[in-house]
């Protein structure tokens, strides 16, 4: 008897907690319905203001909808660990570059850990890791440990920086998590400007101030590259010079020193100058059509070997417009080692420049940066310093005087929106290694509404079909099963709401499936009771025996379903996890609802003599 009262109490508590946890969802729903019902926007605003706390509270605690139902963006980004490890290495030579190349190629094909690939590759070549990493005295194992730690730190730092960027951009309730050793999963509900978000996220935001080399040096370097290309034949490297006659020919009005009369057939005599033009003042540029090609060319290791030591050729981030309206990208020869990096930036602000039309970003530095910047600018008056962000030159102003206050400016920005985004990424700081988007799913709000409708319809129909079947097949006992089923659905939803998990379309599918599976326990019990009744037992003892004897197979079937759902949750990602979660909650809840709840109902009915051997159909 005592046990019985305990069960009743348990049922009451569970029902109460479920209702309590779902109350804000109901409140949220009815409040927004109320808000929409007003005739004028004024009334609705007035109502919203007077009930503000109520509305916000309900919204915060209500059942969240997943990205697919609400509309939004789901991104998976990968931290480029190969790049990270390259940064950590020293003593880099051609051999090292070749090894890293191989590692990179493999890492895009398998999901093996980059560090393992790296170790395997080094072992293949019979080179100790310590030749390039850390201390020569370190064993391979120590180095692997250190690199692992580096990459873990890089991942969590990248996650924080991305979170910063998103927070600054302003997305309601973003979810940012890491997965495995190199993935960051980002969920952004209700994002409409996908392009902007993508650009905001994918940049490394590595800001550098680099000294420009003398123009004469660049001209000489370009000549050397040209000669090299002639000797080796540009095509021999699998590179084909794009048909440039239209692209470069036109915008070369004042070019003098170098031959710049490209002829698409003459690629063999001056292959470089087919794609690059040089002004008399020694600045070089390439046009929009040939930019990709030039950029690829400059990244080739054989070309890089031709550059003067400690220098690099970089392209401009934004084009200048030539006289004929052609877009021209400048090419800069800069020192490889930056004078100063973005780490010293403390504040960034997007604004309009002195003429009031050109957007720019003002930056200020910390005290260390300020004193360094003063020294650098003081020592290089009259020279040019390039402001480089993620390997592209934004501007390369001539230093007019020593700058003592740690201020600097990025200009050459197209729109205020872009300046704002730059402000965000500069404030959030640079990523420890480049990231790239490997998976992207976005759902528009209208499709989301369709999904909700489809999901609700499935829920309603499945519930009707199953509960009516139980009533028809098991008569009075079916009522108990149906009550249990309602409670089961309530429990699933309330657990989701209570743990701040969100409901997605696969999640709804999980609930629908749960509806079909939850009554299974009742079917097993009722069938057993029917058997006991057929053997001529009384209703009371048949019910007791039925519950006792069916329990073992009910437990077994629940355990197997639960373990499969759990593994699905562990190995699956994104949408599938939502399905696994609802299936797990539903299956566990049905152990309680289908066994404890229905049994209590029968006890009550039996006590009131409302059950007979006809009650089980």
């Amino acid at each position: 008897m005592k046990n019985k009262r305990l069960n009743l109490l348990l049922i009451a508590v569970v029902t109460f907690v479920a209702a309590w946890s779902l109350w804000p969802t109901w409140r949220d729903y009815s409040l927004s319905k109320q808000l929409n019902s007003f005739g004028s926007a004024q009334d609705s605003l007035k109502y919203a203001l007077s009930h503000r706390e109520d509305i916000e509270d309900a919204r915060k605690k209500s059942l969240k909808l997943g990205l697919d139902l609400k509309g939004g963006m789901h991104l998976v980004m990968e931290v480029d660990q190969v790049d990270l490890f390259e940064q950590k290495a020293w003593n880099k030579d051609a051999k090292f570059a070749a090894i890293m190349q191989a590692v990179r190629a493999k890492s895009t094909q398998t999901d093996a850990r980059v560090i393992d690939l790296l170790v395997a590759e080094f072992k293949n070549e019979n080179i100790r890791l310590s030749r390039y990493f850390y201390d020569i005295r370190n064993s391979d194992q120590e180095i692997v440990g250190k690199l692992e730690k580096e990459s873990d730190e890089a991942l969590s730092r990248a996650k924080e920086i991305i979170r910063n960027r998103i927070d600054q951009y302003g997305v309601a309730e973003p979810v940012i998590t890491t997965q495995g050793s190199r993935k960051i999963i980002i969920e952004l509900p209700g994002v409409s400007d996908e392009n902007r978000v993508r650009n905001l996220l994918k940049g490394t935001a590595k800001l550098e101030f680099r000294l420009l080399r003398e123009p004469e040096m660049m001209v000489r370097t370009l000549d050397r590259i040209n000669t090299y290309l002639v000797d080796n034949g540009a095509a021999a490297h699998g590179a084909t010079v794009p048909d440039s006659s239209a692209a470069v020919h036109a915008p070369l009005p004042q070019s003098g020193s170098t031959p710049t009369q490209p002829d698409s057939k003459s690629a063999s005599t001056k292959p470089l100058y087919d794609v690059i033009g040089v002004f008399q003042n020694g600045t070089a540029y390439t046009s929009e059509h040939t930019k990709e090609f030039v950029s690829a060319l400059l990244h080739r290791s054989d070309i890089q070997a031709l550059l003067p030591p400690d220098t690099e050729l970089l392209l401009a981030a934004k084009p200048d417009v030539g006289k004929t309206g052609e877009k021209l990208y400048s090419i800069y020869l800069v020192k490889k080692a930056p004078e100063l990096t973005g780490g010293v930036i403390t504040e960034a602000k997007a604004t309009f420049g002195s003429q009031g039309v050109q957007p720019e970003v003002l930056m200020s530095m910390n005290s260390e940066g300020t004193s360094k910047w003063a020294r650098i600018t003081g020592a290089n008056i009259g020279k040019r310093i390039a402001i480089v962000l993620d390997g592209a030159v934004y501007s390369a102003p001539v230093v007019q005087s020593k700058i003592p206050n740690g201020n600097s400016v990025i200009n050459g920005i197209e729109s205020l929106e872009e300046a704002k985004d730059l402000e965000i990424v500069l404030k959030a700081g640079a990523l420890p290694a480049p990231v790239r988007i490997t998976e992207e799913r976005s759902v528009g709000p209208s499709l989301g509404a369709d999904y909700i409708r489809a999901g609700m319809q499935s829920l309603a129909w499945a519930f009707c079909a199953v509960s009516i079947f139980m009533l028809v097949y098991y008569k009075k006992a079916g009522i108990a099963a149906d009550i249990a089923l309602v409670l089961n659905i309530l429990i699933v939803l309330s657990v989701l709401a209570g743990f701040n998990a969100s409901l997605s379309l696969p999640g709804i599918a999980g609930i629908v499936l749960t509806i079909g599976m939850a009554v299974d326990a009742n079917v097993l019990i009722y069938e057993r009771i029917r058997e006991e009744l057929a053997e001529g037992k009384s209703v009371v003892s048949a019910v007791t025996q039925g519950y006792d004897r069916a329990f073992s197979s009910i437990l077994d079937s629940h355990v197997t379903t639960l373990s499969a759902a759990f593994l699905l949750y562990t190995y699956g990602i994104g949408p599938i996890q939502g399905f696994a979660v609802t299936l797990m909650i539903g299956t566990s809840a049905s152990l309680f609802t289908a066994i404890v709840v229905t049994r209590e109902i029968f006890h009550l009915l039996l006590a009131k003599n409302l059950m007979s051997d006809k009650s089980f159909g």
Partner: protein
Amino acid sequence: MRIFQKTNFNFIRYRKIAYGFSIMLLLAGMVSLVVKGLNYGIDFRGGSEVVIRFDKNIDVGQIRSVLDAAGVSGTLKQYGMDRSFLFSTVFQGDSGQLKSLVSNALNDRIKGNHHEIVRIDAVGPSIASDLKWSAVKALFASLFAILLYVGFRFEIKFATAGVIAIFHDILTVLGLFSILGGIFTFMPLEMDQSIIAAFLTIAGYSITDTVVVYDRIRERIRGQKPSEYERIFNESMNQTLSRTIITSGTVLLSVFVLFIFAGPAIRGFAFAVFTGIMIGTYSSIFVAAPLVYDWLRLTKSAVHLRGSKIS
């Protein structure tokens, strides 16, 4: 109401026919898997998918020619709902680029019929291989977990036969996916993440019916001579037939609802679970229990089942 009242089928005697049927089913699937292969969704092969919805009715051919002219190659199909189309392509660059490419082409060439890009998915190749591996790992881990659990609850012969039956169910569904893949426009039957979820659901659920039969056999086999096994197996299966059918029936009912109402994104999943559960019910009667019977008969040993008292 009762569907099966006091049945008396001799399942064990006809088991060889069932074995033959199952082997045929599996062979057909295997042949199709080798010859035709599977229809992989972007989850597993990488690439991009765009769902475009138009305001007014429009012919697939018209959109196709517009996209072709714009130089975006890929396949275009009607997508479940009204006036919606699924365009899938191997394009793996910036999905913003793809979106504007498609959007501009449609805006320029198809006047007076506004369109909206309602969904865009892009999956890189490394993710795709990740997903494939996790899927395989999850599936085998769950089979192993079930083997252990059933082995612990019953006996290793029962557990092995149960897991073989699950294998049978999943391979049959996989074969069906290969055979029927791409035939129906309303359900392309592509292999994607949701199908993996379906397989795991089938694995977890298929054993349910098997366990119910096992449970009855365990209850009745205690202290019996091996010569009685055939009778006991048959009686156990007949006694549990009704509940086996009905438990599966309620699940089939709700999965059928999913298939009809939940839209094209869930349809492949619903199809897989539906067929999987049907085959799972069949296999728990015609594959799992008969296999145990044959195994016991061949080893000629009495069973020592766990699960102490009759409860």
